[in-house]
């Protein structure tokens, strides 16, 4: 493994549009998936013959299935509102990371093959005409740019908040990845992971026996710490709640501290619950690669687990895009969920459960146990901009903050234009959380690091909480590049776990 050459961009007080440097991030993109990683997803193992024609054909298929895609490709008026809204543009200075430029990579091919002037000029061989309307033939240069720059988009949708037409660059980036997969050029990181879900049940490839051993270890840890036996049940039929959480919660830090927090909350509320070894994954990378079919296959595992275990409710742990897929698409992908208890929303977020219990006064919380920290909260893109929580508008912003404030005395938000629906991506979302993109990930974290630095300096913030496994892992890796400790990032339910005093707990 060669040492990565990483240049950390300079931090300013607030995001500034950098001086543009053409092709600053030109490259070959992340590792390409080998045949072994493509097969299980139903994609060709290498670039197919006539891939140019096949790509154009696939684009036509997507246009016929998703009206939204055609609208996005048709409606841009090049107003420029999106240009400085992308964290990758701010961190890399590469003009192709302007959202409009990223969209144009697909749009230029759309114009050539799916608009009347493009078809006409193409047929006549009038290059001047194609240049005039910004149309391009599908060729190797275009494919290389697609592969490189559509893997410099974390599908965070911040640009779409500022677009007066609501053009969703994430949808365009997903469509591009789906086209590339269909012609045999997939990304190793995402596709290897989806294959593991099909084979083993989760992104990690954590087999049932290892999962059971890990959960037993956590039960021991909680008992050592509190003197109370709190269970983390696996595959228990008849439990009320099926918990679907990212497998990183079983494996990484600070994720696992959050998982122990969920367990304590369920225990204290007297809610019986279980994890499923078959659906031991909340994350759904099918979304990142824009594949309806793969997203559905992964979602159906959750349905099957819920039916097999006979649960009444499905609750999701701290995972950003899992919550998007669950909240926004689960019912159409894997529904109807008429076999679940209709008194509860399908699905529910763990923060909703904890927030509800706090309001009912069912949790004995000692906020002073978090007094060694001053917190801020990082809104994760897919929760902030692609879903909701609870039953009021903006619940996805309110509820996690209510939970934090219920368990911590010290909390300060970051600046208004970097939180809520204007939140900046952590820099590692959308299938980019891979070592081969570390330089991009460090650069993309710049705007969030700037906002964090400001609250650290002005309000003495010591820790940042998040409810997304990708955000937590990404920050653990990139914080040190900006002069912060890696353990500055914490799970929201880690804070809950610290403050929650269990019934019968030995006081220290």
């Amino acid at each position, binding site marked *: *493994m*060669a*040492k990565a050459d990483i240049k950390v961009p300079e931090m300013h007080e607030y995001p500034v549009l950098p001086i543009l440097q053409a092709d600053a991030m030109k490259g070959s993109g992340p*590792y390409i998936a080998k045949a072994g990683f493509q097969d299980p997803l139903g994609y060709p193992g290498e670039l197919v013959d006539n891939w140019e024609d096949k790509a154009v054909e696939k684009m036509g298929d997507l246009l016929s299935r998703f009206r939204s895609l055609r609208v996005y490709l048709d409606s841009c008026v090049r107003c420029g509102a999106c240009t400085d809204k992308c964290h990758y543009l701010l961190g890399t200075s590469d003009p192709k990371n302007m959202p409009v430029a990223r969209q144009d990579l697909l749009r230029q091919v759309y114009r050539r093959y799916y608009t009347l002037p493009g078809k006409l000029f193409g047929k006549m061989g009038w290059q001047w005409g194609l240049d005039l309307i910004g149309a391009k033939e599908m060729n190797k240069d275009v494919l290389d740019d697609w592969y490189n720059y559509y893997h410099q988009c974390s599908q965070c949708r911040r640009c779409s908040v500022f677009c007066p037409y609501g053009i969703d660059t994430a949808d365009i980036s997903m469509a591009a990845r789906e086209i590339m997969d269909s012609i045999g050029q997939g990304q*190793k*990181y995402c596709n*290897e*992971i989806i294959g*593991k879900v099909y084979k083993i049940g*989760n*992104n*990690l*490839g*954590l*087999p049932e*026996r*290892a999962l059971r*051993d*890990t959960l037993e*270890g*956590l039960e021991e*840890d909680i008992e050592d710490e509190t003197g109370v036996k709190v269970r983390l049940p696996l595959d228990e039929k008849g439990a009320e709640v099926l918990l679907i959480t*990212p*497998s*990183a919660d*079983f*494996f*990484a*830090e600070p*994720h*696992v501290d959050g998982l122990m927090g969920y367990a304590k909350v369920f225990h204290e509320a007297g809610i019986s619950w279980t994890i499923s070894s078959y659906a031991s994954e909340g*994350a759904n990378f099918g979304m990142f690669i824009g594949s309806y079919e793969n997203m559905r296959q992964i979602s159906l595992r959750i349905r099957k687990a819920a039916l097999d275990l006979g649960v009444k409710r499905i609750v999701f742990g701290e*995972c950003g895009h899992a919550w998007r897929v669950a909240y926004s698409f689960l019912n159409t992908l894997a529904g109807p969920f008429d076999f679940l208890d209709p008194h509860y929303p399908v699905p529910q977020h763990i923060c909703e459960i904890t927030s509800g219990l706090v309001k009912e006064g069912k949790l004995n919380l000692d906020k002073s146990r978090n007094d060694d920290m001053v917190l801020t909260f990082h809104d994760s893109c897919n929760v902030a901009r692609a879903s909701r929580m609870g039953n009021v508008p903006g619940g996805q912003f309110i509820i996690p903050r209510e939970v934090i404030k219920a368990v911590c005395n010290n909390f300060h938000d970051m600046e208004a234009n970097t939180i809520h629906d204007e939140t900046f991506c952590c820099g590692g979302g959308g299938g980019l*959380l891979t*070592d*081969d993109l570390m330089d991009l990930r460090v650069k993309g974290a710049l705007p969030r690091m700037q906002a964090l630095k400001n609250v650290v300096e002005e309000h003495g913030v010591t820790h940042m909480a998040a409810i997304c*496994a*990708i955000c937590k*892992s990404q920050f653990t*890796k990139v914080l040190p590049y900006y002069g912060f400790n*890696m353990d500055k990032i914490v799970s929201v339910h880690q804070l809950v776990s610290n403050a929650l005093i269990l019934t019968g707990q030995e006081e220290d």
Partner: protein
Amino acid sequence: MATISVGGKDIEVDEEGYLVNLGDWTEEAASFLAGQDELELTDSHWEIINFLREYYDEYQIAPAVRVLTKAVGKRMGKDKGNSKYLYELFPYGPGKQACRFAGLPKPTGCI
């Protein structure tokens, strides 16, 4: 497919430098892989690498960070049972870098 040459034998590795076949691993290979990262393996490194291989043998996956820190704490003393100690040994992260030296597949996912 890329290879590394250790002790006169060519061993296949993937793009990221992980061994393709677990069976190809030797102690010499571990030292070679560490050398690529400008690290020299000490007894402390070997204790971790050997534990990872034992755990993998039983569970077909590398241990979670917490499982690893707990086991290290039990075997080598409480002051070593934390991720700070592991990061000192394996600066690129105990999960990924130590797995590579131990010849195990890279853990994947949101980690």
